């Protein structure tokens, strides 16, 4: 491999990117836009679930229960209905996700029997929200019940009993249980995967389309020189993008950063080599710019969103799907980024994913270089 030839290609490529507004947009504006859109758009937190209350008793007791729902950050009582029909409507039309029905003999039953049912109706089209809503509703009702017990016990002159077992929880790594801290590193991985593959997906197909490839392959340049020369300038641009995204993550979205910059730099470089090689590979295989760019979008976007652990935890997937995730390059980087950001993990803790990512990088780069043939056949 001759450095001079690599340099000539890299320099030419850089000039071309600089003079092509479309490439510049992809290179610098796209990551910014995606970071902001996805950073705000993708939130797994469920707060302020809109609730419709159907209070059939309308007593002091029943209202105090509803006030507890209102006071919780997880619920917002937005409607009160006077009939089951109105409650059904609120759910049907999507104005509310949950309905709370308090029976007409609520206070009476509490006083006489010591127990009273409260009905909760949930819109489970989004099962995740429904599940979480149910959990929070249980919490609100439990809180209310234990207060009722305490008051009842005091009335009878007894000392309130402690609960036999009490849970003392401490949440590690993401203390505020803020899903943004979990999501943003994934967004960074996704943006880099997308932009990286887009950048290099055009580089070979452009030469075919413009007719410059024929003379280029008649020169002594080797396919490895061509690949390295083509990828180098995009590596520099990719690092710039990475710096941009990570800065946004830390200073704008305020994701705690607990790891070492060197670890971040090293793993990000490795990931960039993978995504740029994937784009290059696609560019070699598909000789039209539009086609290559579409395929690059398809093969990076879908697997990264669904199978990288960015939105859905991998260990909850059935095993055949889990097996497939090992083929998704962003899976390794998402794991690494989350660990560096939230756990402050270093190279040793991340040994396995780094090793796998390095193997991945070598395999893709090797295949990409080999896929290019210096012939017109």
């Amino acid at each position: 491999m001759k450095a001079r030839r690599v340099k000539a290609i890299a320099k030419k490529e850089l000039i071309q990117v600089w003079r092509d507004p479309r490439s510049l947009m992809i290179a610098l504006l796209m990551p910014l836009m995606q970071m902001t859109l996805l950073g705000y758009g993708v939130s797994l937190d469920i707060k302020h679930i809109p609730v419709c209350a159907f209070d059939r008793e309308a007593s002091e007791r029943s209202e105090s229960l509803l006030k507890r729902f209102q006071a919780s950050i997880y619920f917002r009582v937005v409607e009160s209905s006077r009939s089951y029909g109105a409650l059904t409507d609120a759910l049907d039309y999507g104005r509310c996700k949950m309905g709370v029905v308090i029976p007409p003999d609520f206070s009476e039953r509490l006083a006489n029997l010591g127990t009273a049912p409260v009905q909760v109706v949930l819109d489970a089209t989004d099962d995740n929200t429904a599940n979480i809503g149910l959990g929070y509703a249980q919490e609100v009702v439990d809180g209310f019940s234990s207060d009722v017990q305490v008051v009842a016990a005091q009335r009878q002159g007894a000392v309130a009993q402690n609960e036999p077992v009490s849970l003392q929880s401490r949440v590690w790594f993401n203390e505020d249980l803020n899903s943004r801290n979990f999501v943003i590193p994934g967004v960074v991985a996704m943006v880099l995967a997308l932009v990286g593959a887009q950048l290099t997906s055009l580089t070979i197909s452009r030469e075919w389309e413009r007719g410059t490839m024929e003379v280029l392959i008649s020169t002594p340049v080797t396919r490895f020189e061509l690949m390295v020369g083509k990828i180098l300038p995009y590596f520099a641009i990719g690092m710039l993008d990475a710096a941009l995204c990570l800065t946004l993550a830390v200073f704008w979205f305020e994701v705690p950063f607990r790891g070492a910059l060197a670890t971040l730099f090293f793993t990000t470089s490795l990931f960039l080599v993978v995504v740029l090689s994937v784009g290059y590979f696609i560019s070699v295989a598909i000789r039209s710019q539009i086609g290559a760019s579409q395929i690059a979008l398809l093969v990076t976007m879908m697997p990264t969103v669904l199978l990288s652990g960015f939105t859905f935890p991998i260990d909850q997937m059935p095993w055949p799907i889990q097996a497939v995730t090992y083929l998704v390059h962003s899976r390794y980087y998402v794991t690494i980024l989350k660990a560096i950001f939230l756990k402050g993990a270093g190279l040793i803790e991340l040994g396995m994913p780094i090793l796998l990512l390095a193997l991945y990088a070598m395999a893709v780069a090797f295949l990409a270089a080999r896929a290019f043939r210096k012939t017109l056949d």
Partner: protein
Amino acid sequence: MSPEAANGELRIVTDRLVKRFGAFTAVDDVSFSVRRGEIMGFLGPNGAGKSTLIRMLCGLLRPTAGRAEVAGVDVARNPATVRANIGYMSQKFSLYSDLSVVENLRFFGGIYGVKGQRLTQRVEFAIEMAGLAGRADALVANLSGGWKQRLALGCAVLHQPPILFLDEPTTGVDPTSRRRFWDLIYSLAEEGVTILVTTHYMDEAEYCNRIALINQGRLVAMGSPSELKGGAIQGRLLLVECDDAGPLLEALETAPGVRDAAPFGSSLHLLVDDPAADVPRIEQFLAARGLAWRRVEPIKPTLEDVFVQLVGARRPGEATP
């Protein structure tokens, strides 16, 4: 191996070269050789296989059968060595339009390993040669056809290759620019550069030391322009000057003694065996049919006559019927 090949005088040698694309045979059993400093022209209609042949010699296409040697090296076996010794101008314009003149030149300099002082000199030389002095920083996209072609030649010879392949280098270039382009080719050949050039312009073919006529992938004739004009046609040519060639052409195709008739500008060229006897016979034939002509006389064949006779095409730019 001939003595010429042994001392490296033969720079391009092909031996029964064949290229098939599926059922279509683009190059069919072509053997020829080109000496050092020679300008070899390949003349033929579009689709005759000229570009396919050049691409095989540059190592861009693999021959289906046969062998090709360039600069003494087997192209199929060692394309890398061949590539370092050749310059190639493809039929389609292939420089980077979004780069400036000097950026293109420096790029090819870098690719071919031309560096330092020599690179500066060669870039200056190429700019001078292409007539682009003062436009070194202009984007290639903004240059006109003739300039682009001369710059492409400049890029192809930047590393001073001993062998040059030019695939229809002057297509779409005005006559003055074409003339200038050929002056450059001559000066390169004088320095000992071996040049293989394809064209479908007759006048350009005349500039070559040797011409190979190629049609439907086959080598039809080969020789210097004067050899071809003198010996390739069996028979003699008559010129028929007239005002309206159409009816005359139709009539003369069946006239006695006329082996072939072809339009040539506003007049006709006839192929006959014995001009002395045939001229009066043809004049009688025309008079009997009431057709008007100005003059019938024997002429020396041009390259176009040779082409028409051997290839059967009306004009090399058109496909054979």
